[in-house]
């Protein structure tokens, strides 16, 4: 059985824990605590170590999903989790543009530590004030559409939608490894 470790990262309230809960086949190992910081404006509880979920992907591959905390004071967890990751998805809430800078910071943190493939997942795209994919990509530092990681829209509450995002991430990882070997 091959195991692929995927990391789900992004700013506070992007939907990382919800994402993992939506697709995991096992009961998710979560480490959420009552929020007392600015996260409280968005939600009641916040992840302080990591979330862990598992998903069987075909007969001989299992996906292990690790969700990071959102706040940068937990960046030691970002570091621990990304070191062993095969790929990661950066979740960004499309309707909170003031967080794009934080999303970009997280992405740079990951890129500095690991060269593994990544995709961008846009959540909350149905909320008022949501930016479109092209503009968010621009805000994240990808002005050129042909030279940016895949961008997918995902509803973290819907299993099918999250599954699509996971498939996109796995495919992107495979296509990258094929390109590297050919």
């Amino acid at each position, binding site marked *: 059985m091959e195991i692929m470790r995927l990391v789900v990262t992004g700013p506070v309230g992007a939907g990382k824990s919800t994402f993992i809960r939506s697709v995991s086949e096992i009961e998710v*190992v*979560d*480490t*959420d*605590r*009552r*929020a*007392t*910081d600015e*996260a409280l404006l968005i939600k009641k509880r*916040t992840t*302080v*170590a990591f979330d862990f979920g598992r998903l069987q992907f075909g007969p001989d591959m299992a996906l292990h999903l690790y969700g990071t*905390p959102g*706040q940068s*004071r*937990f960046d*030691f*967890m970002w570091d621990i989790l990304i070191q062993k990751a095969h790929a990661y998805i950066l979740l960004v809430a499309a309707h909170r543009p003031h967080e794009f800078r934080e999303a970009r910071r997280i992405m740079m943190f990951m890129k500095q530590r690991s060269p593994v493939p990544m995709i961008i997942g846009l959540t909350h795209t149905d909320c008022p004030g949501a930016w479109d994919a092209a503009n968010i990509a621009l805000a994240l530092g990808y002005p050129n559409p042909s030279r940016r990681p895949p961008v997918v829209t995902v509803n973290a509450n819907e299993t099918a939608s999250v599954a699509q995002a996971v498939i996109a991430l796995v495919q992107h990882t495979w296509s990258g490894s094929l390109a590297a070997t050919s």
Partner: protein
Amino acid sequence: MAISTEKLTHILQSFVTSTTDIQGAAVVTPDGLPLAASLPGGMDEERVSAMSAAMLSLGDRIGSELARGGIDRIYVEGDKGYGILTSCGEDAVFLVLADKAAKQGLLLLEIKRTLSDLKAVLM
């Protein structure tokens, strides 16, 4: 009543200075924010707080999922010393950093005593 940070800091400072082989202590929220601290120079309060919260939450999870029950404390034993995390009521986590030379029995007793002082302020 508002929580008095000064009182908490005072308790921590007297704990650290009056107990031999204790190098630092901090009280943090369960989601990893500093409430009060008396730490060795060079240690960042915010980072220490986040690490304490992450560790205790994982320990809690191990306790429940691997059927060890409620967690009283978590020990990190290194070759230079100890890091001991104790839950301090629902709203706080108590971290103690001690030298390798510390006597464990004494350490636990002092932690217990300080915990009740801290809890009285946090109530």
